[in-house]
Every structure is written in structure tokens, then in C-alpha cells.
């Protein structure tokens, strides 16, 4: 159990590290995090998602978290975590639309020169995508 928790947390750190590097490398304007594979989101993961959104914002990229399971949403709210500062969408398609919309609103019309997608096989981890400008 201890090892699982440690591994789990380390994977979150890896996600933050690789994602911020990807944003800079691909000059990404949008980050889409798909958490549909996550059976639970505890306070640590919730905080990590907020941190990722903040890091991305500082690097001038918009983050949208998509695919949250209904039971996860209920549990998060009852834990007192409403993911402040994290934009969410029902699925990847709507999340991408949201990112495109906000880029369009800021005067940039979505020219996606690069698209990066990562998948963490280790359970339970989110997949993430970085979309280049």
C-alpha cells in the first residue's frame, strides 16, 4: 500500500514535470487533461490538477480537465474540493472546443502546428495532451 501511494504521487510529479516541459517545447497554448480513467481523485490529485492549471497559466497555456466520472465529482465536492481555477468539460471534444474558443476570443485563430498526446499506462493516471500554437 505504501509503495502504491509513493508511486502514485511520483507519477503525478512526473506528469507536472513533463507537461510543463511539453508546453514550452511545443509552444502550447492549450492543455487537455483526460481523467476519465481515474476511479478516484483524492485531495492530492485534486491539488495536483490545480497546480498543473496554475503552472500552465503562467506559461500562457489554458488547461481544461475532461472526462470526470460522476462519482468522482460527488466525492470531490463532499471532500470540500471544487477544483478552483480548473476549467472542466464533459469530454475531450468539448474541452478542445473550449480551448479553441478562448484562443479565438483572445484574437488568435486556432492554427494548431503541433499536437502532443501522452498516455500513462500506470493506473490510475490521467492522459494529457498539449496543443501547439
Amino acid at each position, binding site marked *: *500500500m*505504501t509503495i*502504491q*501511494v*509513493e508511486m502514485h*504521487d511520483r507519477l503525478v510529479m512526473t506528469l507536472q514535470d513533463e507537461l510543463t516541459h511539453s508546453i514550452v517545447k511545443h509552444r502550447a497554448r492549450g492543455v487537455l487533461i483526460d481523467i476519465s480513467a481515474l*476511479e*478516484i*481523485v*483524492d*485531495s*492530492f490529485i485534486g491539488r495536483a490538477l490545480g497546480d498543473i492549471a496554475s503552472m500552465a497559466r503562467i506559461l500562457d497555456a489554458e488547461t481544461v480537465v475532461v472526462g470526470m*466520472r*460522476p*462519482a*468522482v465529482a*460527488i*466525492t470531490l465536492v*463532499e*471532500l470540500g474540493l471544487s477544483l478552483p481555477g480548473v476549467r472542466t468539460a464533459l469530454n475531450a471534444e468539448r474541452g478542445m472546443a473550449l480551448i479553441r474558443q478562448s484562443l479565438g476570443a483572445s484574437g488568435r485563430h486556432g492554427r494548431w502546428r503541433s499536437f502532443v498526446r501522452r498516455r500513462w499506462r500506470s493506473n490510475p493516471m490521467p492522459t494529457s495532451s498539449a496543443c501547439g500554437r
Partner: protein
Amino acid sequence: MTRELAVALGFRLVDQTKIVTAASELARNTFVHGGGGAVLLEALTTARAAGSG
């Protein structure tokens, strides 16, 4: 392990999720602040219902 027990006890999905999340929070605190520990999972039953309390 926790989810398997919750499922076996007949908890619905939302309650399973809450139980597993609570176990995750406890395990993390035990590890981070207590330096580790043991996990004991025990099913409690009342006269009226199993898996509801």
C-alpha cells in the same frame, strides 16, 4: 483491496468511490506524516443493514 471489499459488501458506485478515496487519503497521511503503517479493513454490520454504516 478497499474497493473489492466495498463491492463485496454491496456498496453502490458513489459510496465505493467515497470509501476508496477515504482510504487513499488515510494511506497518504499515514505514509507522509506517520512514516508508514498497517491497513486493517473490517466490515461493520448493524441489526438492520450490512454495508450501510
